[in-house]
């Protein structure tokens, strides 16, 4: 029942985007500029050191690639839908979602797809593979399976964090800035989480686990992911999924549709 529904939501959102094809080129340019800036940042850092807390320059390219790809997923589906949710709560137009015979969380999470921002996903992937250099031979089937699990866990983590931030609109109404906070914190993920001091590492791994969401798939790619970390990221994703569901339900009880 849900799979065809998901497909229809995605199809309608994609059809809306396909009307604006020039946006593809805008997204390509934006993606190239972002990658160029990321590479320049790495060049500046490595002009002063040979490695950053044990991460070589090539490995940091892998981190940047994963960061770009996960950011691409976020900007393609998650963030546009969450921005729409915040706006609907403010305007009182969430009524139109709540009165539909479909799970409201599912519906609000897939209503907006900025298809062209998905350009970041292959661009980030290509950069990560390029960063691997001579080591892609290490990518066995098992390693690819582990990578797929970590990427899925990453996307779940980012989605849950953004949903919880967006849900604060039910309490504080005017909270577009909370999504700006996410964007700022997500920038921290362009460096491996191990670079940060203990307090910030805990913050970026568990409280707002965006650092974990990028570093873990990157570690899987460069072959330095311990099995315990893999188990931890899966458990964390499951916990965040349950927590975000609870927060979503509690949030809906606050909704009054005051402006509708």
């Amino acid at each position, binding site marked *: 029942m849900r799979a065809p529904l998901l497909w229809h939501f995605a199809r309608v959102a994609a059809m809306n985007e396909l009307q604006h094809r020039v*946006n593809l080129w*805008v997204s390509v*340019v*934006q993606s190239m*500029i*972002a990658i*160029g*800036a990321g590479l*320049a*940042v790495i060049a*500046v*850092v490595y*002009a*002063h*050191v040979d490695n*950053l*807390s044990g991460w070589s320059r090539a490995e940091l390219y892998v981190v940047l690639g994963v960061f770009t790809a996960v950011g691409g997923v976020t900007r393609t589906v998650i963030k546009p839908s969450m921005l729409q949710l915040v706006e609907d709560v403010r305007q009182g137009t969430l009524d139109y979602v709540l009165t539909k015979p479909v799970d409201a969380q599912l519906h609000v999470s897939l209503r907006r797809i900025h298809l062209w921002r998905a350009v970041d996903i292959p661009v980030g992937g290509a950069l990560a593979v390029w960063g691997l250099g001579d080591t892609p031979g290490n990518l066995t089937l098992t390693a690819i399976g582990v990578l797929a699990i970590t990427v899925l866990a990453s996307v779940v983590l980012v989605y849950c964090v953004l949903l919880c931030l967006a849900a*604060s609109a039910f*309490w*504080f*109404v*005017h*909270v*577009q*800035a*909370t999504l*700006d*906070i996410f*964007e*700022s*914190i997500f*920038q*921290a993920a362009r*460096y491996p989480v191990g*670079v*940060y*001091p203990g307090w*910030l590492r805990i913050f970026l791994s568990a409280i707002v686990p965006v650092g974990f969401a990028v570093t873990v798939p990157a570690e899987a790619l460069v072959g330095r992911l311990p099995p315990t970390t893999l188990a931890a990221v899966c458990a964390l994703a499951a916990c965040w999924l349950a927590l975000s569901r609870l927060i979503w339900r509690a949030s809906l009880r606050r909704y009054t549709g005051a402006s509708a």
Partner: protein
Amino acid sequence: MVALLDVYLTNASMYPRSYLQYRVGGLMRAIAFLVEPVVYLVIWTAIAEQRGGEVAGMPTKVIAAYFIVWTLVRTTTAAFTPQGFEWRVQHGYFSYQLVRPLHPIHYDLSFYAGYNITALLTWLPAAALLCVVFRPELHPSGWQVAVFVLAACGAYVLRSILLWLLGMVNFWTTRTSALFELFMVSELLLAGRLVPMDFMPTQVSAVANWLPFYWTFGFPIEVLVLDRDGTTMWRGLAAQVLWIGVCATVLLLVWRRAVRRYTAVGN
């Protein structure tokens, strides 16, 4: 002139009133501003420690001071963005701004001045916390503080005009996100936003001196944090005035043409 001042004061008082109604939103925005420099601060502190306590001759505590003052400059130079401009053009919002007696940039300049002054209230405790955690070395003289205030005001006006110029491209394209991205990258690399310009290769610093970005960001920070001589400070203030003059002239010339293009898309 008195009427203009009155408009500025009234408009500047609008954001503090809105902030009082949506305090959490304002607080969140202030926190969002602070995350970026904390990341830079942590990374460059780690690099400095790896190199024995300095980068390009700048000790760890001075690097900490640089990025803490960074947060102050970032807070006081927030301005109306091309994304907002894009929204105004796409939704026909300029229609009622154009029938007002003043140039629309006055409303943005005054509104964001109020916005930035309000943001300073949330910056103060955050800066105090950063000082406790990172222990910066910062002992500016009264003279440095006075020049910093002037430089920060100059940086705000120059950055506002630059972003407005970029925003006006929307009259022709109705979309400037890619250009804005390019602006942000230029600011990141050439303004001292990513790192102090002393960390950059000398060629990059030389190019930055001939572009406006550095005068909107790195210059005010360096005035307060680094021991620059009087000539360098005066030259910096003069560069700001020059850039403001050039950009304001271009803005006025382009504005006349831009308004003729305006068709109130979507309204």
